[in-house]
Structure formats: structure tokens, C-alpha cells
């Protein structure tokens, strides 16, 4: 059949219209399709997603067909636009409660309370994590994982130099000074490829200097960010930066390069997150003979001992416009199976550590990654008991968090004072609190 020029021209708008229509909700074999956009995933991660999630789910039942697309770093922006256009995926994954807040407040995702009731999710997830997705008494998301900042260190280097593991600020500075004297960088750190490293560090300073109780008060609006404990935290971060504790090339090194400094004994320690376990290029091995990890010790007088920081690296919701909410919920339920938990954490450690009560991390024993097993077990215990600090990327609202990341560079590089930095942060936070943009705080005890 030949097409006239007129027919061809007429077909263009029709084709454009068809492209804009929602995709078929059914697969060729009659199964209802569930769509899911994922953000960044390295090659290991993509293989794990393909094998442990998509194929495993699709073969586990014959009612739904999960279709997952890895969208890359811009997924959050794509998702917002797609949701507003009513053309997003069924499963809405955000980069954590701070991102979820706007989407939930705008009603772009469904309340999950009915599904939560049906599948008893409220009884199965750890309350501190689940509560980060409750808005106006309704549950809008499930936490995909838990994360925390930790102190990673080269245990061989510590052993060779006779350094004791630090338990407070003084001991930490003694080790750092001893390392500097030997030409070793105290903390491997670099933000050339991801400015978010600034907030990793500030999460540690705010919580471990000012103490988690003060941070909680500030997030609840009971204490201004300009209060002395936070000034002390910012001043300490500046002092450490200026002393060279983070090396001379903080703004030039990538995360991978800076972490490798620790593995290669050019740096002694690194403040990094539990996601480091799942990133092979960081150079850690299983089992690890060089590296070790511990919760970050206190850096002030607000508390003693060490602290983990409550973080939810990603949330999972169902789009308001989803044609297959049941299927999306079935995928969530599949994620709660023992098999998925084991295979995903074996193949991509740290990325999908679901914070659930009925799948305790002792299940991870035997996956051959002792550091990861130990860390997750500690986190599970601390979060269960309500002993934790608060990560900036989970609990700070968007504009305040963006300023926390960008503005701290001005402090470190002597462009503004700590007071000016915190005053601006307080102004932004007060406005966002007024606008209802602060993510919900978990209850004081689990």
C-alpha cells in the first residue's frame, strides 16, 4: 500500500497523539504490566535488578509483568515532570523522604494504607523508617533501604602505626594529627563528581557534635539552627578542613578516588555511607583484610559513645494515575520475601536493605561479606532501639538541604562566617517549615 503525501502529513499528528497516550497496561501474554523507573545503577546493580527483581518477580507469578527501566541520575527530575503530565510509571521511586514530601503533598502518589492493612506492612517495617513516609496520618511510601554514615578506616594502617580507634573528638584529632605528621591524609574525601559529599560530612558534624537530640529539636522547630551547638559543629568542620584533615584536593577528587586513598593507605579514614559496600570500584573486598568500619564516634559533649544516622536512601510509592496499583503492591510484597532480601543483598550489598522487622539482618550471615553483615546488624539494632541521628538528605527540606550543601563550601573557603551560614539556613528552614515541606520526624522511640 502506498501512502500519499497528504496521508503522510495527516498521520504525523496522529502518531504524536498515540505516542502521548498511556502505554498498554497488558503484556502480549495477557499479564498486567507494572512499570518501574530506577535511578542510577552500576553494572552489578543492573544485573541484580534484572535477575533478582524483574525476572524473579515475573517468574514467581503469572498475573503481573514487571517492566523496569534504569533512567540514570536525572530520574528525580524526569519523574516529577512525568507525574505532573499523568504519564509516570506505576511504581514511583524517589531518592528519599525529602524528595517524596513534595510529591506526596501534591497528591501525585496514592496512600498505601489499604495495601498496608492487607499485607500488614505497618507491623513488618521498622517504625522509624516507615514513619518518614507518613503525611497527614496517611502512609505514602515504603522505605526501600536504610543507610547511615560510618567511619571506614584502613585497619592495616592503624595497626602499623599503633593508632587506637578513636572514641571521641580528642582521640580522633590525635589520630588525624599523627596521620598528617606522617604525610597520610586523615580522611579521604572528595566532591568533584558529587557535591552531596558535603552533606555526608555535615550529617556527621551536626549529629556527632551537636548531638541527635539537638538536631531533632531543630528539625521540629524547637531550636534554631543558629544555636551554639550547631555553630560549634560548623566551626569544627571548618577547622578540620583548614587543617587539611580532608586533604588538599577535596574539590578535585571524585568519591571513588578519595575512597581508594583509604584502601591504598594514602588516607587513614573516610566518612562514608553504607552504600559503599555495594560499589566495587571503591576497592573494598569480601572478606576484607585491609578495611574495617565502625559507627562514627562522638565529636562533642552532647553524648558519649558512637552514633549511626537514620537515612532512607529511597522510597517506593504507587502513582496516583497508576492503572495497576494492585500489581505495584504485589511487587512491594515480593520485595519482602526472604529470597529477594538474600539475593539482592548478596548481589548488590547496601542498596536494597529493606528495613523490615520480620527479615532480620542475621539472614545475611553467610553471604560472604562480614563487614556488610556486621554493619547492617548494628544498624538494625540501633534503629530498632531508637538510637540514631538524622541524615540531612532524609530529614532536611529541599531548599535548606541545597543550601547546606552549597553554603558550607563558602564557610570552608572563608567566604562567609559560620554564623552567616546558619542564619541563612535558619531563614530557609523556617520558610519551608511554614510551607509544610519538612519531612516527617520519626517518633522518639521505635
Amino acid at each position, binding site marked *: 500500500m502506498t501512502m500519499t503525501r497528504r496521508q503522510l502529513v495527516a498521520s504525523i499528528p496522529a502518531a504524536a497523539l498515540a505516542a502521548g497516550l498511556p502505554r498498554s497496561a497488558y503484556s502480549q501474554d495477557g499479564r498486567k504490566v507494572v512499570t518501574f523507573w530506577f535511578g542510577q545503577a552500576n553494572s552489578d546493580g543492573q544485573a541484580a535488578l534484572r535477575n533478582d527483581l524483574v525476572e524473579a518477580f515475573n517468574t514467581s507469578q503469572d498475573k503481573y509483568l514487571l517492566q523496569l527501566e534504569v533512567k540514570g541520575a536525572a530520574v*528525580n527530575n524526569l519523574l516529577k515532570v512525568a507525574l505532573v503530565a499523568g504519564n509516570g510509571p506505576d511504581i514511583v521511586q524517589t531518592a528519599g523522604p525529602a524528595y517524596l514530601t*513534595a510529591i506526596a503533598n*501534591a497528591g501525585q502518589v496514592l496512600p498505601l494504607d489499604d495495601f498496608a492493612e492487607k499485607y500488614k506492612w505497618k507491623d513488618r517495617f521498622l517504625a522509624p523508617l516507615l514513619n518518614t513516609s507518613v503525611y497527614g496520618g496517611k502512609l505514602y511510601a515504603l522505605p526501600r533501604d536504610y543507610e547511615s554514615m560510618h567511619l571506614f578506616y584502613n585497619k592495616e594502617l592503624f595497626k602499623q602505626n599503633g593508632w587506637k580507634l578513636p572514641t571521641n573528638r580528642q582521640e580522633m584529632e590525635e589520630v588525624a594529627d599523627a596521620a598528617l605528621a606522617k604525610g597520610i591524609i586523615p580522611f579521604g574525601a572528595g566532591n568533584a563528581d558529587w557535591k552531596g559529599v558535603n552533606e555526608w560530612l555535615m550529617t556527621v558534624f551536626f549529629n556527632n557534635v551537636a548531638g541527635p537530640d539537638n538536631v531533632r529539636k531543630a528539625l521540629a522547630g524547637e531550636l534554631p539552627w543558629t544555636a551554639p551547638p550547631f555553630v560549634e559543629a560548623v566551626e569544627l568542620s571548618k577547622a578540620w578542613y583548614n587543617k587539611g584533615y580532608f586533604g588538599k584536593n*577535596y*574539590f578535585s577528587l571524585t568519591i571513588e578516588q578519595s575512597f581508594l586513598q583509604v584502601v591504598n593507605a594514602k588516607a587513614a579514614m573516610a566518612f562514608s555511607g553504607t552504600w559503599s559496600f555495594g560499589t566495587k570500584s571503591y576497592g573494598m573486598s569480601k572478606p576484607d583484610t585491609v578495611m574495617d568500619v565502625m559507627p562514627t564516634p562522638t565529636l562533642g559533649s552532647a553524648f558519649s559513645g558512637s552514633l549511626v544516622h537514620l537515612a532512607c536512601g529511597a522510597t517506593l510509592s504507587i502513582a496516583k494515575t497508576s492503572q495497576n496499583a494492585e500489581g505495584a503492591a504485589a511487587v512491594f510484597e515480593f520485595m519482602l520475601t526472604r529470597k529477594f532480601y538474600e539475593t539482592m543483598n548478596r548481589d548488590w550489598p547496601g542498596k536494597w536493605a529493606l528495613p523490615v522487622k520480620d527479615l532480620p539482618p542475621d539472614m545475611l550471615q553467610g553471604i560472604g561479606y562480614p563487614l556488610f553483615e556486621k554493619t547492617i546488624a548494628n544498624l538494625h539494632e540501633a534503629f530498632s532501639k531508637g538510637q540514631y541521628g538524622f541524615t540531612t538528605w532524609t530529614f532536611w527540606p529541599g*531548599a535548606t538541604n*541545597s543550601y547546606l550543601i552549597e553554603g558550607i563550601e563558602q564557610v570552608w*573557603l572563608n567566604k562567609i562566617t559560620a554564623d552567616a551560614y546558619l542564619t541563612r539556613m535558619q531563614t530557609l528552614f523556617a520558610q519551608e517549615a511554614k510551607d509544610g*515541606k519538612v519531612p516527617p520526624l520519626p517518633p522518639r522511640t521505635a
Partner: protein
Amino acid sequence: MWLFALPALLINICIILVPAVLTFTAAFFIWDGVGTPMWAGLANFQNMAADPVFWSALTNNFIWTAIFLTVPVCLALVMAAALLMAPKARIVVQSIIFLPRIIAVAVTGRIFQGMIFSPATGIVAWLNEHGFSISDPLADPDRSLYAVAAVDIWHWWGFLAVVFLSAMRQISVDQIEAARLDGAGFFALFRYVLIPGIRPTLTLMLILTVIWSFQVFEFIFIVTRGGPAYGSEVLATFAYRHAFFEGDVGQAAAAACVMSLFGLCATAVYLWLQITDDAQST
């Protein structure tokens, strides 16, 4: 005649006019990008004016404009004139200097970041190992803008040289030969024959440079993301950060309006020059 223009007009209305009007409208609303926009009047512009980062970003756009109106233009003019005088080398040299233009911006950015400026893996590292004390300019808030500008100049000037060369080749050979017979050297020829001969092209490129300089985004976003400490922040990165990291689309739209304002001014100057030229030639 309108029928002939209709397809182009429709595309322009859908792809340019509608988003432009929506962006302008968004500047008067508070909107997080997903919820319901709320009328804000001039609040976004007032907040922006009160933000010191906006003013430093605007200043950086002016610095960027000044750099790109001079450095690559001068380099390109000299190179174009030299190639006009040396036809045998033209093909090879043009290919070489044009090459950076066809390399993807992301690749160019990463090459300079990782292989040249990096104190761990770049030429800077090698120089430091051989006794030169050089720091990464991208890590210095007072130098990062100039360092990124250097990357963009490397990417841009060859293209400009090729444009200028093709314009110079339109100049009458008789005119050039006559100048030479009159004893004009390279610089006299350049000053009194070549530059006046390519004036319309030069003007257009300068005007476009002003417009593009207020829209500059990719290189800065890829190489420094506007940092460190807002050292290389420009209006486009300022707008992007507000729209996608801070969930403040209204503020981002207000910044975009300021960017467009300078582009409109440059366009108005260009149109005025065209009208003046037309008036003089009739």
C-alpha cells in the same frame, strides 16, 4: 505567503512561544514543580534580588560575556586571517582547530577535569610531581570560572575561526591584492581590509556571543556545577539548582526571565544595527 510560513510558525509557537510564556508566567507563582502553583506577584524577583548568590551569578555572566567577546574572537580572527594568507595549510589546520567543536561537551568537560586540571590524574598532577607547584584551578572559587571558560574557549574558538575564514573568503581578492600592492603588511591588511570586510559576520557573532553567554550552562554544570562556593555559578546553574534541587520553579523561572532579558537586549541591538545598515545602504 502565510501558508508557507505556517509549519515553521506552528513549530515556533508550540516549542518556543508557549514554553516561554509559561516560564514567564511561572515567575509570578510559587510552585514546587508538582503541586498547585500559588500566585506570588513579584515575590520571586524580590527574593532573587535579596540573594547575594544571584548577584554573583549575574556578575559571572558578565565576566563570561567579556571573556568570550574578546579572547576567542581575537584568536579566531588572527587564525582566520593567517589561514587566508596560507591556503596550503588551510584544510589541515581547519580540521584540527574545528575538532574540539565536534567532541561532545560532556567528554570535553571530563577530559579537562580528569586529564588536565586534576591534581590526582591530570597534567597538573604530573607538573606537581616534577617540581612545579600548581593547584587545580577548578577547586579555587576565585579561578574556577576562568578555568571553565578556558575549556569552553578551547571548544569554541576553532569554530569561530572557520566562520570568520569563510567570511573573509568572500572579500574580493582584488581588494586584498590592491592593499598588498600599496604596501600593506599583515596587520594593516587585517585592520583596514579584512575586519571591515567581515563586519556583518563579526557583528552577528558578537551579538550571538552575548546571547549565548547569558545562557551558558553545560560546561559549568559538567565541570564545576557552579562551585566551589558558588565561584562559577551563573544564572543558568542558579535557575537549575532552584528548579531541580530546591523545588522552587518560580524562582528558577524568574532567573530565566533575567537571562532572556539580556538575550532580548542583544537581539534588539542586532536588529537596530541591521535597520541602520539598511538605511545607510539605500
